[in-house]
């Protein structure tokens, strides 16, 4: 462990104990733990952030890394070992192209309404697409947009960050370039293939109740 310029043996010992406890807490949990929870367990005088950074540095070259994801911290196997570890894992369910594209649009354009997703993709969102992404725990409903009809928006979750190994949404690949290029503008376009159609039509419920 990297011990800073602390000379008092008692303080050194206290710090080592805090690092050990932090290590054990993070190690015991499969889910990320946030700094508030960790702080509550380490006591009021612990500089949780500094201890976490120290642990992160220690584990950086190892086979298990301490990573920061969303609001929390978690131990994860090192990404470069993936080809050697992957043997054990069963084939994951394949996501449809529509689901993957929709996930990317929610991630990069959030908060985004279903209508906007359809504008960007140029097709109606089939039933089950958002459902599957939500079942994976990657997206969730956000606040309603304060415009006509108050449409629901969709946003990504902390689990999305964890799953894709991102610390924050700012770490989304290429997000700055896309924003600079104006491509994260979800404004409607002149040729709106499907967006708007749904709004103008009676919903199935209304139609059925005749």
């Amino acid at each position, binding site marked *: 462990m990297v011990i800073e310029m602390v000379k008092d043996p008692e303080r050194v010992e206290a710090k080592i104990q805090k690092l050990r406890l932090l290590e054990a807490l993070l190690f015991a949990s499969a889910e990320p733990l946030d700094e508030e929870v960790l702080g509550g367990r380490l006591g009021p005088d612990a500089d949780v952030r500094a201890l976490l950074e120290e642990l992160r540095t220690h584990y950086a070259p190892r086979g298990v890394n301490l990573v920061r994801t969303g609001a929390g911290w978690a131990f994860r196997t090192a*990404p470069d070992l993936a080809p050697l570890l992957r043997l054990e894992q069963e084939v994951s369910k394949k996501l449809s192209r529509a689901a993957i594209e929709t996930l990317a649009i929610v991630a990069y354009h959030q908060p985004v309404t279903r209508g906007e997703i359809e504008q960007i993709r140029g097709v109606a969102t089939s039933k089950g697409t958002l459902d599957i992404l939500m079942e994976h725990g990657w997206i969730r409903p956000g606040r309603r947009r304060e415009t006509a009809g108050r449409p629901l928006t969709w946003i990504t979750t902390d689990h999305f960050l964890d799953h894709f190994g991102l610390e924050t949404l700012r770490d989304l690949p290429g997000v700055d370039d896309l924003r600079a290029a104006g491509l994260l503008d979800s404004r409607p376009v002149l040729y709106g293939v499907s967006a708007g159609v749904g709004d103008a039509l009676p919903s199935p419920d209304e139609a059925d109740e005749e």
Partner: protein
Amino acid sequence: MSDDGFAEDQPTPAEQLVVALDGFEGPIDMLLALARDQKVDLTKISILALADQYLAFVAEARKLRLELAADYLVMAAWLAYLKSRLLIPEQPEDEPSGEDMAAALAFQLQRLEAMKGVAATLMARPRLGIDVFARGAPEDLDIQRKSVFQVTLYDLLKAYGDHKRRKDASVLHMEPLRLYSIEDAVKRLAEMMGRIPDWTTLQSFLPREPAGSLMGRSALAAHFAATLELAKAGQVELRQDGAFGPIWVRRARPVEE
């Protein structure tokens, strides 16, 4: 594509597209595939060439008597109109201009292309449970559990959705006669007409129904009646060049002078 001496056996791009039609998620997706074939930076794409390719595809599909979804036909009509706007000198009162329309379409293609790109990048990242693993044997600690019960928002919404569905299913519904209503046809036409500024045949607005089926016939009747309703309301103009000839529809122009 054909320096192997068998050029005449090679399918044309339009034929290839018809074959691959199932692989596209709608007309914009197909346009993007066509644009990629131009092999230039999407910011320098020729919308005019793209429109020609797309129209060739629709012509080919028609030749093969392939049923195309309405969206594809609407796009064809829109592109034909855009093309005419780009080729004919701009009138000052035309709003938006042909260039604006082409730029908007180019933007839409670039934006979708960007999203497809990042989607692929995202999925190629090391993913939890596939490339990167969490602690395999977590020890059950009293750490973060604010609640003894593990219920997610998804569980809650799913429960409500399931309940709604069960409830709907338990109510006896008398099935209405399955016919296309004039009201629906009016709504449908009004919506589609908004995107097509020029003369288009009524036939191309009809939903995909087997010709001669009850639904097909009722759709034709409802849409015909709907055009009359809309014409009466001054929203569309109708034209027929001869008895039994195709009926042409277009959005009503503001009265001149």
